[in-house]
């Protein structure tokens, strides 16, 4: 029976998987879950991939972790929870990785951490912003990336200093999108007076946002906060511009999801993004630690592209795993690594990283002082380096630097 | 009380009167031929009897109970079974299963149906092809099969529409033999056919129609010698 023949193959493979685990002593396998196909954000996935590879090369060139090389195993999540769950499951049960890193979409991360938690394997959440990931309070999960509450606070403060009266957010229908939109609402209510705020959820799959945009033409808001990943974000910007809703003298666009440094950004948005304010986790004008400079240089050498935030976050994630193993004197046992990570105090590519052990809300296992900036796009096809920095790390927004649309 | 009573049934399509106060009746166990030139209304009448058409006026009674306007399914359950001119078998089921479907649908148990089916297949000399799919049978064999399925549960009355049309002589023999045997067992038939010789040797009594009317209803020989009947056929020939 043909089925039998194939299943014999299955047995063979099963055996292989067995034997291969038997010799798993060397190298150190680290699983990386990223989106490499839609509806996931492929451009994000690619940046994370490059970042992890750059970091792995740096570690391995330096002789690896106590002689053991780092081996990365990538899995495509398509940014889809179900696929992310399966991916983490595969990495842990089939490839026997010592840790999972790289997730850059909250919905996928939320599905992934469940599996990591079940199998008790360390999970470095590279770029899942949703607070819920932290609130789960899973010991295996560590967050060196930014989190929604921090972004929400930043947005609320910016709205306040812009003196906006009427703010509308367009968010994608994901944990990240809806979660951030709601948090911004509560932060605006908490930290400001007299700003009316509401948000509209957009489906990543469908691409015609006009029915949601057209009603704004009657009386457009002062600021439109855009909380989508590409390609949805690009299409939204184009259709806002097409309808003359924004950017205009009356209405400003605020990008809360850091899309301006994607390689396909300008190919997709044209003049729709001019004078857009951007919440940024990296800007070339930011000061970087030594490690950060090295990673940036290697990345540019590798990809001929300018550095970006995800590069650093991904690199940090892998470095953290390596550091943890070292600190746990080369044990890859989950408990040892987790203990090591909780105690870690290590200067990464963006600053000195420590994880809060405070088991309250978004704080748990979170690097609390992730640096961020705000900058403004001022010309078509403008490289990030030339974009206008309007808020330096740890400083308030500088209104005088902001350009208004005529 | 007659087994089937057709009482002043009329049906017209637009202007054309396909049936014009047609009336006749038959007793249980009778084997009646229904003849007449083309377009005389035979098939229309059969359609009404089998519920595939509803009549404009008149009534049809089965054992005294009116059955006018009932659906084919309902009539099938009451024992009025009609064999179509063009056969409709289940092409991807074996000949045997084709028979079983009818048997079971009409309330036989599966074993009962199997026993009955084997008998019928024997009787119709289809036994050797019983496991072939109906779709693979020749037109004639399919007709025999259709035939058989009508008799899985002996119907109260069997309506045969041109059973001999375009059928190989040997098959024709098998059929008429089959009909005769069932008749002998007391089965009631209405046989519509152009094939007068077969009607003559098969049916003791015949009803002849023309232009929607019943123009003759007596012993087959008498009908065929009836002047009106001959005119009707000649009229057709002349036309």
């Amino acid at each position, binding site marked *: 029976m043909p089925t039998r023949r194939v299943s014999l193959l299955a047995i063979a493979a099963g055996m292989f998987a067995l034997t291969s685990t038997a010799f798993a002593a060397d190298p150190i396998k680290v699983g990386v879950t990223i989106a*490499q196909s*839609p509806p996931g954000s492929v451009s994000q996935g690619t940046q994370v991939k490059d970042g992890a590879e750059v970091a792995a090369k740096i570690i391995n060139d330096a002789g690896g972790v106590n002689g053991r090389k780092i081996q990365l195993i990538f899995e495509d999540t398509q940014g889809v929870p179900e696929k992310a769950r399966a991916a983490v499951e595969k990495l842990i049960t089939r490839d026997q990785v010592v840790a999972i890193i790289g997730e850059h979409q909250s919905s996928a991360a939320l599905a992934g951490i469940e599996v990591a938690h079940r199998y008790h394997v360390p999970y470095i959440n590279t770029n899942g912003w949703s607070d819920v990931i932290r609130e789960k309070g899973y010991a295996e999960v560590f967050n060196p990336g930014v989190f929604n509450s921090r972004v929400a606070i930043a947005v609320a403060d910016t709205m306040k200093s812009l003196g906006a009266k009427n703010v509308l957010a367009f968010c994608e229908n994901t944990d990240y999108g809806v979660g951030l939109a709601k948090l911004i609402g509560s932060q605006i209510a908490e930290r400001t007076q007299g700003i009316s705020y509401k948000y509209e959820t957009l489906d990543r799959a469908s691409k015609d946002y006009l029915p949601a945009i057209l009603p704004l033409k009657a009386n457009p808001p002062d600021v439109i906060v855009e909380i989508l990943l590409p390609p949805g974000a690009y299409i939204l910007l184009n259709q806002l511009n097409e*309808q003359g809703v924004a950017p205009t003298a009356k209405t400003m666009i605020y990008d809360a999801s850091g899309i301006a440094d994607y390689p396909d950004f300008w190919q997709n948005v044209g003049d729709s993004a001019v004078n857009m304010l951007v919440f940024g986790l990296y800007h070339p004008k930011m000061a970087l630690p030594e490690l950060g400079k090295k990673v940036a240089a290697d990345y540019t050498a590798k990809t001929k592209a300018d550095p970006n935030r995800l590069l650093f976050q991904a690199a940090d994630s892998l470095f953290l795993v390596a550091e943890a193993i070292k600190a746990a004197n080369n044990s890859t046992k989950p408990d040892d690594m987790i203990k090591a990570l909780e105690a870690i105090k290590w200067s990464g590519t963006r600053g000195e990283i420590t994880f809060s052990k405070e088991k309250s809300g978004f704080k748990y296992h979170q690097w609390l002082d992730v640096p961020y900036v705000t900058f403004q796009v001022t010309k078509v096809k403008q490289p990030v380096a030339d974009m206008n920095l309007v808020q330096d790390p740890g400083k308030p927004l500088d209104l005088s630097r902001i350009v208004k649309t005529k | 009380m007659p087994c089937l009573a057709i009482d002043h049934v009329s049906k017209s399509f637009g202007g054309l009167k396909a049936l014009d106060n047609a009336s006749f009746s038959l007793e249980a166990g009778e084997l009646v031929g229904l003849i007449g030139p083309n377009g005389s209304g035979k098939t229309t009448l059969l359609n009404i009897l089998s519920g595939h058409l509803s009549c404009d006026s008149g009534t049809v009674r089965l054992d005294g109970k009116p059955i006018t306007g009932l659906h084919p399914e309902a009539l099938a359950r009451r024992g009025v079974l009609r064999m179509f001119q063009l056969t409709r078998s289940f092409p991807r089921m074996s000949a045997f299963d084709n028979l079983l479907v009818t048997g079971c649908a009409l309330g036989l148990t599966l074993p009962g149906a199997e026993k009955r089916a084997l008998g019928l297949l024997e009787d119709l000399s289809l036994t050797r092809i019983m496991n072939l799919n109906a779709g693979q049978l020749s037109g004639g064999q399919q007709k025999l099969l259709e035939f058989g399925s009508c008799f899985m549960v002996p119907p109260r009355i069997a309506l045969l529409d041109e059973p001999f049309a375009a059928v190989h002589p040997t098959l024709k023999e098998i059929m008429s033999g089959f009909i005769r045997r069932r008749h002998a067992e007391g089965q009631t038939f209405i046989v519509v056919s152009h094939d007068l010789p077969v009607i003559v040797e098969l049916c003791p009594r015949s009803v002849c129609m023309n232009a929607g009317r019943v123009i003759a209803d007596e012993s087959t020989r008498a009908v065929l010698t009836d002047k009106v009947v001959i005119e009707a056929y000649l009229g057709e020939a002349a036309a």
Partner: protein
Amino acid sequence: MLTLDLLINGLVIGVFYALMAIGLSLIFGILKVVNFAHGEFYMVGAYAYTLSALSLGISPWLSLPFALLVGLLLGLVVERLLMRPLYSGYTSWGVMRDEYAVIVTFALSIFLINIVDKVVGPYAYKGPALINISRITIGPVAISGHRLVAALLAVAIIVVVALIIRYTFWGRQIQAVSQNRLGASLAGIDTAKASAIVFSLAGGLAAVSGALLANIFNPTPDVGVFPAIKSYVIVVLGGMGSVPGSIIASIILGVLESFGGVYISYQYRDTFGLFILVLFLLFRPQGLFGEKAREV
């Protein structure tokens, strides 16, 4: 004001729907099957347009006919390789033609989506604009230059196709076959040829509509799925096999979605059409126009 905006948006979308639905409707008319791979004709067209323009750097005005050509060929190949059994060797296929058509076109759709995903990659490409004006304002209505041009082109193509089917020799033959395949073949019409023409025409139209929208909805391998489902709704709404029916139905659906998205629900916008489809199949299977759905 808003009403006008929504109306225009609905009409524009409707026109693009129509471009796709016509082909589907013709195919149904002539083969009495639904082509579940129709959305992939659209997708292939969108990529043919975008990639030829971006990689070869040729003008979008050249990419457009190229996309059309690709669509025509694809349609033709599919018909020759897969649809033949539906009418040649009819007798033995008679029973299973429906299941065959459903299975094969459905599989074809999944095949095309994934082969493109592997060969071209999953990334979204933004097709080049036919004219680079991000906004043209006509009175209160704003529309991007590309959207405007594309819509006008679509209308023109639809008119041409409608005329071809109505008045040309081949058009007449197609009508004849879709009304009565047997009759037509007895009358000496080459039904095989007619089917081939219809399929490749359908492929071409879908491809063009994909190409025209490539600048608005950046193509991905699964970009065809939504438009395909819309056109199923449309052919049912407009009556299977009726070209004028599908055109009117397309406009209706476009406008309905545009208004429904604002006044009923943005979230559930894409389910409206499907509900209509189910309702029509149940209560008015022959659609607004066209033949009856209950085939016996």
